[in-house]
């Protein structure tokens, strides 16, 4: 399978990764050969086989939605990371 340069650039865009020209070429050849390899799954008949998304053996694990005490220092440290302005998290502009 031959992934094109444009496809790699599109995947990089979806992945939010800035890639150099060399990286685009490297991942183009590497991903092509890895995808070639995993394509061997096509030879397996899987009609009527259920898919497995997880193996915990558990379903619908619920708990009460209640507020619990947590170490105050830890909570503050976790919630106050990043650049702040007037109590809000500051990010780069979204619209041009």
């Amino acid at each position, binding site marked *: 399978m031959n992934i094109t340069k444009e496809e790699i650039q599109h995947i990089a865009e979806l992945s939010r*990764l800035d890639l150099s020209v060399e990286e685009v070429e490297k991942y183009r050849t590497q991903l092509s050969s890895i995808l070639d*390899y995993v394509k061997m799954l096509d030879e*397996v008949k*899987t009609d009527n086989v259920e898919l497995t998304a997880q*193996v915990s053996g*558990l379903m619908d694990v619920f708990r009460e939605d209640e507020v619990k005490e947590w170490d105050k220092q830890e909570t503050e440290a976790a919630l106050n990371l990043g650049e702040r302005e007037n109590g809000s998290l500051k990010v780069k502009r979204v619209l041009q």
Partner: protein
Amino acid sequence: MMNLNELTIKEARVLLDEGKITSLEITEACLKQIETLDKDIHACLTVCADSARAEARVADKRLKAGERGMLLGIPYLCKDILMTKGIRTTAASKILENYIAPYDATVVMKLKGAGAVLLGKTNLDEFAHGASTENSAYGPTKNPYDLTRVAGGSSGGSAAAVASHMCLFALASDTGGSIRQPASFCGVVGIKPSYGKVSRFGLLSMTSSTDVVGPIAKTVFDAALVLNVIAGKDELDATTAPVEMTKIENKFANNTDAQPLSGVKVGLPTEYFLENLNPEVKDKIIAVANKLKLAGAEIKSVSLPYTKYGIPVYYIITPSEVSSNLARFDGIGWGLKKEEAVNLQEFYKKSRGAGFGPEAKRRIMLGTYTLSAGYYDAYYKKAQTVRTLIIEDFNKAFKKVDILLTPTSPHGAFKIGEQSNDPLAMYLEDIFVTGASLSGLPAISVPAGMIKVKDGNEMPLGAQLIAPRFQEDLMIQIAKLIV
């Protein structure tokens, strides 16, 4: 007396409880060993000597006050992908170079409660992506048996540290072999518990459907001891199994010492012993089988026909889950950030492009591709259905036998740099270890002797036992008879 850092937990336990040595003395011996050897081995990313000494003093006080506990005062190292409050957690990535978690992983908290002493954090492949620890952004870990060879991965730091007596045990994580393969390469014991047996709260998520936390130790006894302390249901991890699910009776527990494995059927999967398997590897595992036979076990051949699809399934499912799990590294709040970007989209791309290493990027790209519109069915869904067939293979085998015996790895540790330019070759390293991961089964790697590697030197090789889910007790009982 031998060097205190060379003790097993079992040996140290006796000496500590008798008051013949102190936790501080063992801790100092470990710190000294790290200082002496780690400039060459590079097993540690962070050493927290001061807090370790403080923890050791507290443990000594508890011991003096008459308190007893299996891990009280025992120094350990922790893979740097588990959160440690106040101590840097990097995942061996540049994107988390300066990250200090505000909380402890549940397993770290449990060890703290048990009085174990945290010495520092161990090296790994960045975000646990790899089988050699060469993907660490901070340089590879060397194998203590031969510094020109890899320690295995992704928990190469933990395995090398235990093998070179920098600690009495180490915590690690296994997603597709990351505890077992480095344990095999470094000649130590590694347990990958059943999926859901140990809490993953505070473990940096890689492949959520296979990630588990487990111990690396010098003996099976020690590894089992640590597993016992860290296992259990955790409210903070909804995938941990309730107690009633994990309590499975080991029907061979009361066997006599003369015939400890009487009635136990051990399966050798034919697909793990193909023609092209290194004959020396085969001989070592057959020798283990013979040992178990002498202990009363019946050795049977079994078939796991979908074995060869384990790697392709794993390398679709893993990158898919990785691409989702690593989406949280957006440079906002914590992690590396590239401030020069003019808008948010560019900020994400620049921060992530600079922060992630080559293998993390490769997996993010691969996973984004296999999950993207038009390819989802052909790759991701297909892999999930073949995963079902792999699980059914094991289910069928366990109707005929109680446990499976295989090599952990098809060879001994390879040279640093030998495979690092070929990602596919590196993926094939996981050939014997992905099956248990995809199926959520417990597995252990125990030293099975030394084998010749290409240049004529001898390197360790591990034997792997794979058990039915939550049958760790039986697995450990059998493993103890191997070494």
